[in-house]
């Protein structure tokens, strides 16, 4: 019988402790971000999909079409194609495609790129039901930015 009352007592005590904590929390400001009404600014190191860096001087990318990013990518999601053009030293980039569906955001491509022609974007509002929407033509995207 004594055990019975003791367990009622400890149970009540435990309940009161819990309620006290709940009560304290009840008056705290909500911590949830009201997405999409509020959006976060990503930290500078955030890894979004990769993009070509725009050189402010020339107004265009600095890719030399060496293809090292494509070679280093573990998931094979980069397709780079450069062309020889008359009167231009080296190759001219004509195609830079990223298949973002298989990208693991590892950064190997960026580390492999000697001229620093690619970087992570801060893009995170990405959602679609079609996988084609994640096949990016980075060259065209760079043009759009202009």
């Amino acid at each position, binding site marked *: 019988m004594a055990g019975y009352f003791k367990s009622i007592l400890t149970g009540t005590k435990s309940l009161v402790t819990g309620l006290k904590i709940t009560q304290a929390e009840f008056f705290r400001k909500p911590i949830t971000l009201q997405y999409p009404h509020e959006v976060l600014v990503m930290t500078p*190191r*955030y890894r979004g999909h990769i993009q070509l860096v725009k050189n402010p001087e020339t107004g265009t990318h600095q890719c030399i079409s060496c293809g090292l990013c494509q070679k*280093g990518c*573990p998931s094979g999601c980069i397709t780079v194609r450069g062309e020889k053009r008359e009167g231009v030293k080296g190759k001219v980039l004509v195609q830079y495609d990223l298949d973002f569906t298989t990208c693991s955001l*590892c*950064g*190997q491509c960026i580390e492999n790129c000697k001229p620093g022609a690619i970087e992570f974007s801060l893009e995170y509002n990405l959602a679609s039901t079609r996988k084609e929407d994640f096949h990016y033509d980075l060259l065209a995207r760079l043009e759009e930015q202009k």
Partner: protein
Amino acid sequence: MSSQALSQNQEVFELNLGPQHPATHGVLRVKLVMDGEYVVDAEPVLGYIHRMHELMGENRTWAQYLPNMGRLDYLSALSYNLGYVELVEKMMGIEVPERAEYIRVLTTELNRISSHLLWFGAFVLDLGGFTPLLYAFDDREQILDLLESVTGSRLTYCYYRFGGLYNDVDDDFLTGCTQFLKRLRSRMPMYHDLVTGNVILRQRLVDVGPISAEMCRRYGATGPVLRGSGVNYDVRKNEPYSIYPELDFDVPVYNECDSMARYMVRMDEIEQSMRIIEQCIAQMPQGDIMAPKVPKMIKPEVGDYYHAVEAARGTFGIRTVSDGKNQAYRMKLRAPTFCNLSLFQEASKGMLLADALAFMGSLDLVIPEIDR
């Protein structure tokens, strides 16, 4: 559901738990044979999220395999990053600068706390308490923000490199860590009041799911499961790596062998990790974060290599055989939760179903890591 008559008024039936059951945290399926509310047999069925991580290690270069390490145990990915880069550094004889070692340990321990906090919340949720999950997530969110500011990702980190780190931490991060530790220190008593001391939780956990040290040994269980069975084994102490020997921390061990003991081990580990982080911040030297000479092409000498680290759930070991090429000949990942889960079948016999689920929660399973 099939039923099979044992005797006239005794019947057992088969029950499928999972692969999509909230209590199994992912896609684990358990085939239960039940006698009423009692478990007669519980057979885990694996493979629903098998991604061939080991094979992937054998058909890509050593550097290309790095991102895979963030996708085994996605809750404490940095321990796996650490295990792998240290293995490659061991094979290639690369010396890592001290600052990089400190940052590695600091971030790994932060990740361990975040993993334990998530386990804490989810575990109490399994037992029917919803509120602690939200409190734990509030704290965990702070860690994710901190780690995101240095690594760029929130969960599937790929931060360490052979010979160092992807990038350095700044003072903002270190101040952020100090502030977070202060905050978590003030929150721990609240967790203990709200959950550890709670009568319902104690009744659900104390003396439930006993695992003897002998059973742990037979199944190769490690981590908090082993330490909750009274065995003082922690890779950080027993086979020290990185700068752990220079740090002062204790390994929490409980002798009760029940679910409560495993709970307590993890809660104490949070405190110990906080101590480690404090020491890392205090002792962190200035300097480089990358070894000066890291070969561009990783081609380890022919041989058989093994390296183990203490992940949040136990010993994570990688055994690899190199045939001198730029890819591994064989890559074997020893996942701690795979071993921890395998004792479930034997240990859950005769338990009430509700207790078996509490017991399973105390094992802290991460299914993508079990399946690999």
